[in-house]
């Protein structure tokens, strides 16, 4: 399996292309900005973008969908029921997908947005705006922040420390690095109050 990372200067976001070693169906995570360099990389590797995974419905992570859909015909997976006018296959928490021959676990971790998902593929964690290197995702309020921290604490920090984090913005990291140096997480780890936080629509 190969992972290609694309950084867009337009919106400072990361898009990831994941495909097999020798061409075939591929996955695109968060097509925030589709430009010629991504298309060239898809074609050079003889990929067909068969599946798109959306970490959450914010423009910086989905704005390239229109361009992408004009060229390929991927199946879109997202936590949100609608993305512009494109058909979407809804994601559920702890859903295991077999897309393009690659096993993906979808984990719903709300807070940054209600539809925020993290995708686990092998030892890679595509965290969108849930967790960046050195910071957690932005939130609109105290409850949302607490929900997000609780989700990260229970669902991400419990994984093997060697998992590599591929965030929606910023640098690569690992769970061990975040545990040791992410100050927001360090403060949250010591808080028992997070266990009291819940949301009726979400398993936390």
């Amino acid at each position, binding site marked *: *399996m*190969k*992972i*290609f*990372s*694309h*950084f*867009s*200067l337009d919106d*400072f976001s990361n898009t990831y292309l994941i495909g097999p070693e020798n061409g075939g169906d591929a996955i695109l995570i968060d097509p925030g900005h589709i*430009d010629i*360099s*991504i298309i060239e*990389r898809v074609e050079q590797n003889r990929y067909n973008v068969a599946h798109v995974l959306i970490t959450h419905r914010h423009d910086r992570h989905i704005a390239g969908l229109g361009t992408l859909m004009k060229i390929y015909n991927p199946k879109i997976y997202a936590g949100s029921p609608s993305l512009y006018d494109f058909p979407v296959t809804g994601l559920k928490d702890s859903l295991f997908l077999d897309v393009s021959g690659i096993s993906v676990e979808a984990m719903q971790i709300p807070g940054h947005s209600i539809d925020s998902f993290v995708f686990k593929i*092998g*030892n*890679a964690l595509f965290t969108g705006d849930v967790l960046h*290197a*050195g*910071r957690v995702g932005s939130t609109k309020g105290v409850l949302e922040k607490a929900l997000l921290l609780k989700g990260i604490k229970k669902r991400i920090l419990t994984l093997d420390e*060697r998992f*590599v984090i591929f965030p929606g913005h*910023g*640098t*690569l*990291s*690992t769970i*061990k*690095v975040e545990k*040791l*140096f*992410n*100050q927001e997480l360090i403060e949250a780890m010591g808080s028992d109050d997070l266990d009291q936080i819940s949301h009726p629509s979400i398993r936390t």
Partner: protein
Amino acid sequence: MPLLAAVNLIHLAMFRCIPCNHPGCKKYAVEDEFTCLEHSDHPDRILHTITRALGDKHNHRDMLITDAVFDHLDFSKTKLSMCNFARCVFRDVDFSHSKINSCFFDFCLFDRCMFDDNDSRHSVVAGSKLIQCSFTDSMLIHTNFMGIDARECDFSTSDLYYSNFSSSHLVDVQFVDCNLKNADFRYTERDKVSFKYSNFEEAIF
């Protein structure tokens, strides 16, 4: 000051993540081996092979060796992508003019190492200790330096766009004439750190 890199598209292979087959060991096995370096029957031979490869100035991808010691070596002009050198010790090692893409050097010790005119992107140096290291005239974009302990290091005239130094301890470190746009310096402890001629107002403090 170097120009900001344009849109960056890089290839990252996945780590192989094959655990060392020594009972109870949680480290990864060395590339093309069944055990980690510590539990290998021939660690010197492994180290020699990898050292020779790193010195040949060719492209290397998916190389994996952790907890190794590299002393007085010339790895200049080497090209590495998606390699894992976590917890290694590098003493007097020359990485100048090298290209390092998406490599992991987390929790390493770099003592008197040279990274001048280095092109490093999407790599992780977090948790490492850096003593008297030089990173001048380098492209160090999108690189994770979180939690580093750096002393007497020089990053001058380098492009540190979107790199992350948060929670690091910096003593006598020079960032003269650097591009610091979106560079993250939150929660850092700084003593005798110079940002002279750099756009520190565009960094995050």
